[in-house]
């Protein structure tokens, strides 16, 4: 597997292909290869333009308009929607809820995934069974999973019944502001942590055993080995999983719609839910589009930051 650690720069220079540069017609092998390159990426590129960029452009265009779907009116309002965005008294709360959900989910999901992966990576009979069990929620339909947790988190539901057994009186999970968002994070985490766990497990199995043996000889404890050897070596996976999880967490919709519908008191109204509400429930399509632009910018900035950070701490990039 050592080839996988090849520095990226190899790809940047590409395979040497200009060995045969004799006098040739227009279609040199290099030109032909370039054409092949374009053809290879064409479906994805055209798809991105048609199904992502053009719609995105339209969304930006809508954001400068007031659009009443019911009345069928559509007229330009300049930057009004952006002024409204800055003055929106609900927006700070929405952004706070979004940050709470995303940070909470990323921290909980990644640490639990890594912990499970490390546990399962021990030489243990039956770990395949556990691996399957931890992964199984990933394949359960999201709506079904959320509906079931909605039942379990009721005041008189399964979770509190379980807590009663050990003498704890559980709170009203989905109905109190202190626990509603926590519940949403936990439900989402258990749903998808298996995916990250498997990715970490794959990465852990790729760490050469000799490194640990050498470290043990040097007298390094397990904890130290984990931080000095394991974490750096699997850092590319940490980067990939954190990007996927962060971007995914900002797109949470069905869970909120099924579990809490943004309540209580707006405590679980995250950005996507809020923009869905503005556009589709309140019929403010123009303002909904403005919120979409905001969401896009947030995701863009976060991803750029993460991508930049990889140079600092992703091991094999250096």
């Amino acid at each position, binding site marked *: 597997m050592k080839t996988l650690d090849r520095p990226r720069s190899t790809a940047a220079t590409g395979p040497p292909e200009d060995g045969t540069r004799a006098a040739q017609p227009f279609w040199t092998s290099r030109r032909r290869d370039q054409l092949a390159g374009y053809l290879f990426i064409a479906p994805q590129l055209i798809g991105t333009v048609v199904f992502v960029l053009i719609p995105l452009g339209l969304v930006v265009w809508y954001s400068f308009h007031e*659009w009443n*779907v019911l009345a069928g009116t559509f007229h330009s309002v300049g930057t009004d929607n952006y002024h409204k965005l800055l003055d929106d008294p609900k927006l700070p709360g929405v952004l706070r809820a979004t940050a709470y959900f995303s940070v909470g989910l990323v921290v909980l999901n990644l640490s639990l995934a890594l912990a499970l992966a490390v546990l399962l990576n021990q030489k243990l009979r039956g770990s395949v069974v556990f691996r399957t069990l931890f992964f199984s929620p990933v394949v359960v339909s999201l709506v079904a999973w959320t509906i079931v947790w909605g039942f379990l988190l009721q*005041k*008189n539901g399964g979770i509190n019944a379980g807590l009663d057994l050990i003498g704890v009186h559980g709170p009203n999970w989905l109905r*109190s502001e202190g626990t509603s968002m926590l519940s949403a994070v936990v439900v989402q985490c258990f749903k998808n942590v298996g995916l990250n766990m498997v990715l970490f497990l794959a990465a852990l199995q790729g760490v050469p055993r000799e490194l640990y043996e050498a470290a043990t000889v040097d007298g390094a404890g397990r904890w130290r080995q984990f931080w000095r050897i394991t974490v750096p070596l699997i850092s590319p996976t940490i980067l990939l999983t954190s990007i996927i999880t962060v971007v995914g967490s900002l797109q949470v919709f069905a869970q909120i719609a099924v579990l809490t519908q943004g*309540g209580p008191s707006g405590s679980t109204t995250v950005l996507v839910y809020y923009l869905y509400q503005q556009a589709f*429930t*309140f019929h403010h399509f123009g303002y909904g589009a403005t919120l979409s632009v905001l969401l896009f910018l947030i995701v863009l900035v976060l991803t750029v930051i993460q991508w930049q950070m990889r140079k600092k701490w992703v091991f094999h990039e250096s």
Partner: protein
Amino acid sequence: MNTQRQQRTRKFAALAATGLLALTACGGGDGSGSDDGPVTLRMTVWSGAPEHLKLLNGIADTYRKTHPEVKSIKFDVLPVENYTETLTTQMAGGKAPDLAWIFENSALDFVSSGALKEVKDDPDVLPAAKKIWQQDGKLYAYPFSTSPFGVFVNLDMLKKAGQPSPAELIKQGKWNWDEVDRIGAAVHTKTGKTGMVIRDFDYKAWDNLATYWDGWGAQAWSADGKTCGFDKPQMVAAMTSLHKAIFDDEAMLAPGTTADFFAGESAMTVTQMSRASLLTDKFKWDFVPLPEGPEGKYAVIGQAGIAVLAKSKHADAAAGFQAFMTNKENSAKLGAYFPQARSSQLNAATLAKSNAKLSEKQLADVVIDGIKNGKVKPVHIGQAEIYAAVRSGLDALWKPNADVQKVLTGVCNSIKPQLEQ
């Protein structure tokens, strides 16, 4: 190894081909006919119940026999939870249906925006039932379902808890919310079950509470929609009483819990007559009018309308079908599932034919009085936004020791801008 790989490749290609075949078989076809020739009508509804669709399709088939220009009439079932959102999305994308069921809570939005086409008025339909579907004296939807709220009672459970039946209380003139509160608390202490459930409220759909606060003469906002009613004394009194019943007496379903009356988990429930279809013979039951409040007797109705969309490409054909579907004869058929607010049909004998589960007395007491005198739940232009703001504001009320007056003043502050628009 190479042949193995080729085999795999071939398998892959075969799979892909099968997929594409399936795709063309299922994804294709069904071009929505919008040409000028034979007309195809599409109507969105929120009930996928087979008996409802059978009824609707039956009416449609009869209509097509006399109207050959209408090639087909299709009923599209949209999920009830986000019915209005889905409908408006279709309209935003330029694919408005020709006809649609409209919920009462979005009635004013649809009517005032000009999204609906005027429909034929019928003097047989009670004026009170038409109110929210009218603007400037014109009718924009036929109220095809006018369903009064009443109280279903589990007589077995009341007996077990040693409580009098509502019928006795009505005779004694004591069927009121104070008594319901007392009975509910007793049921909860003695059986561990829930006393009273205001169905579908679930601490979210607050407009269902109109079945409670109307008894105090409270209202969400003034009749002209301009003044907030939540901070008025009647509302504060009603909500204080409700809060006590929920948190101090534990007579009502608590937030974050579920108890289904029809599954035998609560002694009483406030809901519409149409839910009688959910009753089984598991327990003895009764259906009675809403209890009296401090302001005396009152009634509340829920509504839904059948409308023609102004954007329809075949608005005239759609209007023709709408008129046919809601004429006297067909509305009697609709009456089997959806109570009709027509003076000609508003007698217990007619109603009893289509409501096998309810006795004539039950129908006369709750349904006929209800449809005649009932108020609709609160509706307003910009309903969805107001609705969400009130829901969010009221959340602070649904915990022990809430400051009722303060919460309700806060609700008013949060909806003032929309009310004044």
